[in-house]
């Protein structure tokens, strides 16, 4: 009985809880800074290409490796391209990469987690086993293997499709980079999301009010909508925030190993690995993308911590 009333109250409070969480988030200065940076990042990712001072691809071989100046705030790279414009465009790459990875992993995770949580028993045992395997896979290694093995085939297939259909879509094999490389990352990152969902479903399943609701024939979808989703949103948001930052670092690791986003499309990762080769002479080529990546990682970590504090019910004292 008490559970039930509590739950009802909680439901009424749903909106104000979200607002409370937001207020708590805003009150946390670091989290606020993190959030502003992340919002700024998204802004740059969306509008960046329209506000860059230069075309991120256009080269000026007479102005190579130039140190930062008023004309080029971050300097120019080895082909005389404006680093600032490339960093700005790189934000788009980073966001696409981070989102494709995160949301793919989220979808897989939610599917797997709800499968396990809903059916329980053997299905759940299987899902848990799958989670265990996945968690023990050396992630970087597997992604590299998938990358070097699958990509050529997919690229080739898309080429053939383009010749057959003339559809522009198939020509854009950069998509393969994004979808396959970072999709494969999702294959490794999903267990966290699955655990969250599974845990929520498990705990909700055993609550009296859900048993009662089930007993009086409330459809499952409704139970899910009413109880599972609201309870999971907090941890999932925290998960997303952490995963986005993580994915960006992963992207740079891939680029460093030569399997990430390939030039001339700028990504912070490939800019960093380019910069690493010459930084003893031209530190600015490394500095800008590395600093931006570090800043964004830190911002996501601030935001994640803040969200965690704001949304984690354990700390609602």
């Amino acid at each position: 009985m008490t559970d039930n009333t509590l739950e009802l109250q909680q439901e009424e409070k749903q909106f104000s809880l979200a607002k409370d969480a937001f207020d708590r988030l805003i009150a946390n200065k670091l989290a606020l800074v993190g959030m502003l940076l992340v919002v700024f990042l998204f802004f740059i990712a969306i509008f960046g290409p329209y506000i860059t001072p230069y075309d991120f691809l256009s080269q000026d071989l007479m102005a190579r490796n130039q140190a930062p100046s008023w004309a080029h705030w971050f300097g120019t790279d080895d082909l005389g391209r404006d680093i600032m414009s490339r960093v700005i465009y790189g934000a788009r790459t980073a966001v696409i990469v981070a989102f494709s990875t995160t949301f793919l992993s989220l979808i897989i995770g939610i599917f797997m987690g709800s499968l396990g949580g809903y059916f329980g028993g053997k299905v759940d045992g299987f899902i848990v086993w799958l989670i265990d395997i996945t968690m023990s896979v050396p992630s970087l290694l597997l992604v590299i293997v998938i990358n070097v093995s699958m990509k050529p085939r997919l690229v080739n297939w898309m080429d053939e499709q383009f010749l057959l259909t003339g559809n522009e879509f198939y020509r854009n094999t950069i998509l393969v980079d994004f979808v396959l490389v970072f999709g494969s990352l999702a294959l490794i990152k999903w267990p966290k999301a699955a655990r969250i969902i599974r845990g929520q479903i498990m705990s909700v399943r055993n609550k009296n009010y859900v048993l009662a609701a089930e007993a009086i024939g409330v459809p499952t979808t409704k139970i899910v909508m009413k109880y599972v989703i609201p309870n999971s949103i907090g941890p999932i948001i925290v998960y997303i925030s952490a995963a986005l930052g993580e994915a960006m670092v992963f992207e740079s690791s891939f680029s460093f190993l030569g399997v990430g986003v390939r030039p001339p499309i700028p990504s912070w990762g490939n800019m960093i690995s380019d910069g690493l080769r010459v930084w003893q002479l031209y530190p600015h080529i490394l500095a800008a993308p590395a600093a931006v990546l570090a800043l964004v990682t830190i911002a996501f970590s601030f935001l994640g911590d803040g969200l965690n504090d704001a949304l984690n019910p354990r700390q609602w004292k």
Partner: protein
Amino acid sequence: MKKDLFKVLVLGLAVLGLTPLQSGQASAEGGQVLNIAHPVLQQNWSPLQGGGHSARWQSLSWAAPMYFDKDGKLTPYVLSSVESDDSYVNWTLHVNPDAVWSDGSKITAKDVVGTWNLSARPATKHARVNLFLGGVDGFNDVVVGKAKDMTGLTITDDATIAVKLASADPIFDQKIATALIAPVKISQAEDESGNEKADWWMPQNGVVVSGPFMPETMDLDQGILTLVPNPNFFGPKPKLEKIVLTTVADASTATLMLKRGTMDAHTELITPTIIQDLGADFLGGPALAKGQQFWINAKKPPMDDINVRKALIMSINPEELALAAFPDGPFTVASQILNKVPGVDPDFKKYPYDPEGAKAALAASKYKDAGRLPKIMFVGISTPTHEAAAQYIAEQWRKILGIQGIEMKPAIETYSGPDQKSVQIFRDDVGTRVPDAVSYLMGSIYSKSGNARNKLGGYENAKIDAMLEEASVKGVKDPDRIKLAQEAQRLFREDWVYIPYYYDVMSKWAMPWVQNFDKNDDWQVIEPWNVTIDEAKRP
């Protein structure tokens, strides 16, 4: 209590910091030690590979049948002389009676023939054997595993070998002047069933060598090799006391080590700032009969249309390409395939840089405009230099022709699997080891060459083939030999299947204090016994 914790922390760090500063650098008393940085973790140092980075140091330990000296003169080594009859089909090779292994035993004709047969067998995986021995009668059967020994190689006596070629080859003697087919002691290298023994080349297994330096230790896991002078070397006495070869895979680390004098030489180091970091002398060297080009696979759309190829090639300004790739030299801008060898075509018409012409050509193609072109993929963009060049090319195409879908991949390897056909452009070098225009072109544009088959995607021009075949049997002194080669090259130009890039130099890849480090066309030190170090200049 904070203080206590700090104490523990500081103490711990201090203990770690005080642990003995061990230096991995080997230093021998008195003598000179050459430290070489090697860019890949090489697990196989067999002299029978015919390629790979380890082959760059093959001349240290293995005496070639013959060699070209600094001035390009063919010089006896293991073989004291090589002669042929007038047909250029039958050759006689004489093994140097002084040539001995490091254990003092004689190098025999059996070793030479055995080595060559072993190299040709498929399981040995020798990467270049057909360039040198491909003309020997029976080679083609051995190389695909149908036979064990080449019928064209016969041991006349302990010091004489008779070679019968499948067809006339006036430069066979020059072709075998390479350490890549240096004889090995066949009883050590070959097992009963005619396969190469595992790890026979390791000092732990008592390998005997013929060159001036013999391996002392080989730690393949660490990637460290040490070589010491071969006491029984049949040539001049080596001057170095020791050679230490360390795997340094990271280019920046290697650069720093070279700068500090921890390392003296490098197998192959390419960074965008190498000239600024290590000086022009490091990369400089004599011109080499080798050129880097971007090879176009004309079978793969959109390259199947010559107008597309014209458009692409005419959009590139060779001078700017050079500026993007190697602004500080030492390479020279390429135009034709041939370079350095006798027979470079003085009247060769360079591909023009003509943006308007390029646009017109694209419009004249069956694709009409850039929007309908399939994606174009580059491979072999393996160094920062090549990456810069490829990005320059891509940018020109975008700027002039409006082409968007361009991709570049670092290495050929990823695409060497089932998907090689998805690649339109390969960056790679071609060259020749013999100063001969025909063999240069036979290795690059002849339809059976590796280059035509792979990089050019199965390029075949019957006329060119016929001309080259005709030229190849002509004597070295015959002026028609060169003329036919030039003719073939002009025909090749009209097919528009390459973007000229640059001509290589034989980079020294050694710091200024390393002396007498001249290298041959196999990138090997010509006279390893003469290498010395000017200690005064070493930091």
